[in-house]
């Protein structure tokens, strides 16, 4: 039986038109392929029914923002704020992403295979963010929950003003932000990391897993300024 694939050519449609067509077809079991995105902004925004969406090329700002339950794969790079406010589902970026990847997510998983810009996972509340490369300045700023896994290095002020959640870093940490501290991951943590990373093709040995540092809040008490 041939697979039912809805093809949308972004070079002939506006973001609003594309998103309307994606929403019309979401929840019906079809696969959706968006071609020629040419780094267009706001692609696949606000899709709240389950859909299997593939974007063949780079996307601009806010790709997959406010989605709930879709599986989105981007075969290219993503601009700022990919996966912003995701509540459930999965967004996989095969290339790099700009600032604010996974900003404010409530659930689901955002995966970026290569490096990302600054403020990754800013104010995230739950869910998982996996970065295959480096993450920049103020990664995890104001983090309120969830989990971030970074296989490369991170920039200055990691987890600035974190209040809940945990960040695992395999590479170097330039500096910690206010209220952040480093603890040793437990064996249970490492098992979970191994399993979750393998799901996205990051197969790490136990020796490599030993390199991870775990960053958590110093205090979970709310604070005002510092």
């Amino acid at each position: 039986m041939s697979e039912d694939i809805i093809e949308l050519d972004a070079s002939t449609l506006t973001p609003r038109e594309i998103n309307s067509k994606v929403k019309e077809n979401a929840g019906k079991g079809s696969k959706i392929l968006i071609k020629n995105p040419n780094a267009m902004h706001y692609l696949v925004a606000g899709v709240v029914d389950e859909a299997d969406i593939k974007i063949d090329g780079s996307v601009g700002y806010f790709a997959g923002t406010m989605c709930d339950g879709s599986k989105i794969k981007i075969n290219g790079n993503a601009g700022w704020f990919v996966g912003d406010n995701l509540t459930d589902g999965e967004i996989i970026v095969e290339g790099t992403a700009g600032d604010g990847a996974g900003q404010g997510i409530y659930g689901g998983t955002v995966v970026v295979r290569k490096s990302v810009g600054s403020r990754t996972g800013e104010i995230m509340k739950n869910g998982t963010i996996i970065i295959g490369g480096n993450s920049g300045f103020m990664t995890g700023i104001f983090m309120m929950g969830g989990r971030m896994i970074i296989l490369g290095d991170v920039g200055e002020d990691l987890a600035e003003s974190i209040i809940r959640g945990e960040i695992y870093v395999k590479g170097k940490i330039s500096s910690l932000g206010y209220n952040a501290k480093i603890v040793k991951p437990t064996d249970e943590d490492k098992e979970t990391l191994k399993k979750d990373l393998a799901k996205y093709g990051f197969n790490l040995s136990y020796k490599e897993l030993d390199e991870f540092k775990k960053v958590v809040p110093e205090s979970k008490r709310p604070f005002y300024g510092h």
Partner: protein
Amino acid sequence: MCGIAGIVYKDKKLHNIGNDMTNMLHELQHRGPDSAGYAIYGGTGLKKNEYILKIQVKEEQRLLETVKDAVNMITPIQSDEVLPSVGDSFIYKCKIELDNFSELKPLISQVDTIDDVIVLNGSQAFEMIKDVGSVLDIADRYDVRNVRGTHAIGHTRFSTESGVDRYHAHPFQTYIIRDISVVHNGQITNYWKVRDPLERKGHIFETFNDTECLVHYIADKLDTGYSLEEALEQSVEDMDGPFSYIIRTPQGIGIAKDKLGLRPGVMAETDDVFAIASEEVSLGQVVDTHNIEQISPGEVMVYEI
């Protein structure tokens, strides 16, 4: 918002860079609908002591003669043309010769004293083209796609301060350093704190635009012995606010981004081309974007030309 872009052809040969930059800026049109501009280097064909002046003149024939007289009083006009008019003014373009670069600013100041006349640009190594309207309209109006060069910077403007007119469109330049120009996305929020010391040193500001302040600041640093990289690094320390900017100086093309990284910037490099832009969509017009790099908060970068 504003969009900024820069491109350098590494072979230093002439390319259809006006066309490239038009394509790059068109992709950034959504970042700024008010005006757009280009500084295209390497293709003017001018000799060392030759300069191009671009002068905005209100649509009155007597004014054009007054402008010509004012220029001819200082140095004979070698050749000239009148570019298409927009609104109630047109641009008069003329070629002149000067013994020294230092004579350029006094000449421009003299022409600027004529009512309803503004000198938009005086340059030797680059062609400045800027106006209100969309990128494609401006490109058609001034036949930008056929302007050749070795490197260029460009801008689409979303005005957040100062006027929306041809004069306030980017790029901005100064006459302290030869053939310097800048395009900028963002706001310099400690504008007066930066401008005041420069004015005390004798810098003359023509606008209240923070981008003009930025180009004066860098020119001043270069004039006092800073390398371009040092000047850019110092600007990141001294300037407050969200910003990223691209500057072309005789030393090279530089980019700087504020410490909090509140304005975007990406770059890509191939064997042939070095390119910078606000967004990947713009870079994609001139390079393969598989290996783009984000410019980090507080980062500065120089590409020597």
